[in-house]
């Protein structure tokens, strides 16, 4: 098994360098979020773009890892 891993990891690296990011991987692209109001507001004022603002707690009853 460790020999298989030794082979697979370099193969993955070669494939990644040989191939650009494909359309299939781009399908997982989500909204690109600024994480702080200070940074987002500065960018909105600089660029003149309107703001999509959302706030949510990154935990459920104090269990993290889920909105």
């Amino acid at each position: 098994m460790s020999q298989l891993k030794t082979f697979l990891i370099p193969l993955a690296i070669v494939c990644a360098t040989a191939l650009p990011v494909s359309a299939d991987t781009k399908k997982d692209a989500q909204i690109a979020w600024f994480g702080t109001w200070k940074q987002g507001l500065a960018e909105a004022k600089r660029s003149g773009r309107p703001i999509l603002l959302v706030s949510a707690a990154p935990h459920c009853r104090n269990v993290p890892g889920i909105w």
Partner: protein
Amino acid sequence: MDRSFLSKPVVIAASRDFVCVRLATYESKAEAVFLKSVFRARSGQLENTVFAILAPDGKRQLVRSGRSPNFAFFGAEDVAAKQMASTMNRIAAQFKTRRTNKATVIPPLPIVADLRLALNVAACDNQPLVVAYSPKANERKLLESRLAKLAWSDDYIGQFLYVSVGNAKAFKQFGDKFRPEAGIYVIEPDKFGLKGDVAVRVAASDDDTKLRDGLSLAVITHQKRMKETFEHRAAGRREGADWKTKIPVTDSHSLGTAKKRSPRRRSR
């Protein structure tokens, strides 16, 4: 919040003409004050979720604000999401005509406030986290700038969360033996976002081709984790996964103190 809106392709496409800001509720006192100015719930307290579309001045509200997009966009899920996207496109077009050439400049790297929070948010989003680390401010700024060009490119936009770290102590979640070196780390968070594995490492001295290859590898090897709320919460309780917010939670539903509404009495 009904997050299904935010993962609809039409809404994601419309978001590209906006500055999208997502804050973590109860993680900043200053941001909490701001959020209450945007939407104050009936309880008078800051509740878990807030939604708004604002003008670039950050003050003028362009649609009805509320706890979620449902406050402004009604109907069945797909219909409401299309309505939201259509409204966003209309708003973006209004502001496009007023913009100068500054809009074509690459925006700064969109970062989360700190590594601890960023790891949690990446776990929530099921996305890898890219960490730009250097104890030298100039070097860190350069790393951020190099990453920003990729972060906003078509190949990588919306594929990662980002954070910038200047102090090695921030990596304590990775164990005492972890000694960070200047450069980029792509981290796969665990399911609770309390720990992570280094998936890719690019040194600060490596060139942009290596940086790009590193991100491509991270995208290709990333595996999404399906999560179900009740199961995740139960697993978290069993395994002792506990999140301490920076300021107290004031949402009565989260606290389990929400009053049940009494049934309406029929008049005779």
